[in-house]
């Protein structure tokens, strides 16, 4: 859209909360990590992104987080052209995205309460409200009794719940989960997936990057399969497709 303000608000396509238009990302060496990827994700959808190592899943997440910028093509998230976002506008942009990682990425020397409260402190929520919001979200993820515990005192499943609580406390419109069950046993994996589904039912768009075939096949959600930087299939109520 040359010469026009780069926003998709009011264009009739506002139901698409994430739009990738012919996006490529090349690093200085090797084949491009993403090669002409186009995809639209609607508001309130639950989407699995699957694919083996080197398929471009992680690059996709990094582009959506604006950790990377695309080599070509355009990425729209929440009506914003992510590639053109100025450095100083990135924090505000990220506050609309909840993010959960495989390795939880909790602040190790702070307790559960502080880890979750931190996300509210950075958006300058008054202390009184933080004291009200944190216990509420901790009880949603089933950790009301463990607010004083340090991350190392928790199981992997519990740590991931803390990460989920932190991602959700500012009510983001999109939740990005990068291999959220990668470090968890099957029981904890299912509990986390159930939580993600509940969150999705509350209206949040959920994007899950995963290797977990069992979960993908059981949940009957939209499945986007990537291979060597391109989308090879995109199916509603899809299944995990083997590379070979």
């Amino acid at each position: 859209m040359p010469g026009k303000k780069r926003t998709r608000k009011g264009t009739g396509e506002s139901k698409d909360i994430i739009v990738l238009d012919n996006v490529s990302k090349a690093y200085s060496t090797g084949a491009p990590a993403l090669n002409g990827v186009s995809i639209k994700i609607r508001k309130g959808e639950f989407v699995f992104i699957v694919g083996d190592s080197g398929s471009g899943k992680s690059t996709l997440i990094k582009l959506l987080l604006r950790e990377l910028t695309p080599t070509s093509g355009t990425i729209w998230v929440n009506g914003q052209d992510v590639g053109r976002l100025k450095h100083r506008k990135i924090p505000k942009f990220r506050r609309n995205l909840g993010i959960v990682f495989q390795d939880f990425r909790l602040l190790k020397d702070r307790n559960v309460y502080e880890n979750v409260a931190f996300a509210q402190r950075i958006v300058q929520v008054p202390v009184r409200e933080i004291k009200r919001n944190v216990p509420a979200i901790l009880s949603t993820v089933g950790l009301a009794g463990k607010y004083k515990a340090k991350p190392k005192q928790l199981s992997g499943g519990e740590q991931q719940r803390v990460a989920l609580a932190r991602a959700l406390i500012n009510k983001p419109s999109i939740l990005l989960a990068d291999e959220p069950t990668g470090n968890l046993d099957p029981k904890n994996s299912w509990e986390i997936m159930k939580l993600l589904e509940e969150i999705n039912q509350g209206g949040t768009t959920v994007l899950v990057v995963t290797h977990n075939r069992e979960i993908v096949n059981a949940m009957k959600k939209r499945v986007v399969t990537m291979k060597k930087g391109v989308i090879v299939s995109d199916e509603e109520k899809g299944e995990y497709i083997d590379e070979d």
Partner: protein
Amino acid sequence: MRISTLFYTVKQGFVNIVRNKWFSLASIATISACLFLFGLFYSILMNFQHIVKTAEEGVSVTVFFDEDISEERIREIGDMIQKRVEVREVKYKSAEEVWEEFKEDYLEGYADGFPDNPLEGSENYEIYLNDVSMQSALVTYLESIDGVRQVNQSEITARMLTGVNALIGYVSMGIILILLAVSIFLISNTVTIGISVRKEEINIMKYIGATDFFVRSPFVIEGMLIGLFGSVVPLVSIYYIYTNVVVYINERFQVLSGLLNFLPVETIFSTLLPISVAIGVGIGLLGSIVTVRKHLRV
């Protein structure tokens, strides 16, 4: 910024110090060591300069006049000398005063046999300088004045004092440069250790939408506090050591008390305190800003 955010930022600065206590202690120790050496040399150099300055104040140039000179001309010459920039003080001594001093110093009770003043014509101006290095320029000028018969100067003393002054300048510059290089090296080392501890923490903060300012502020406060603590330790030590050493030298080496006129500790600290605190806080501030900036682009 909300008051609660400001309060949180300052609190986090303190909490960071306690959390990374070994890193904090290493940084405080590094800054303390550098500032201790700095303070030590600064105190010594200040005293050296003070001693040299005191010695310089005693250096004078004496001007004698032609025998037939009028008193009016002597006054004129006095006014001309007083106007020179290098001159701090001009003292007139009449021939009678010179004779009285001579009698007191050398003849004691044996001067009664002199009916007249044998030092007639020895009236003079004693000139004290602002800066001994300007002595030769002044002497050249004095010798060119009409009515001046002779100019006496203590050239060796002046040269030596000028030399000592220059030496002190070079030595202090050299020491400060060495200390600066050492502190930069040590601090860059401790900061590098700190980076690995913080890198993950900064990344997490950035991923969940913290602004650069929000991420940087607690680290900056932490750096300033470390710098402040790092400057307080050597200042207290130097205060204690200085007062005790001065008392010790004055008691044990009373012979030197006329020569070694130490500056009071308050005089040293009136400049050392603000300089040390500024350097300490400055180093801490700079170290933390540079370290965090490196890792903000996530």
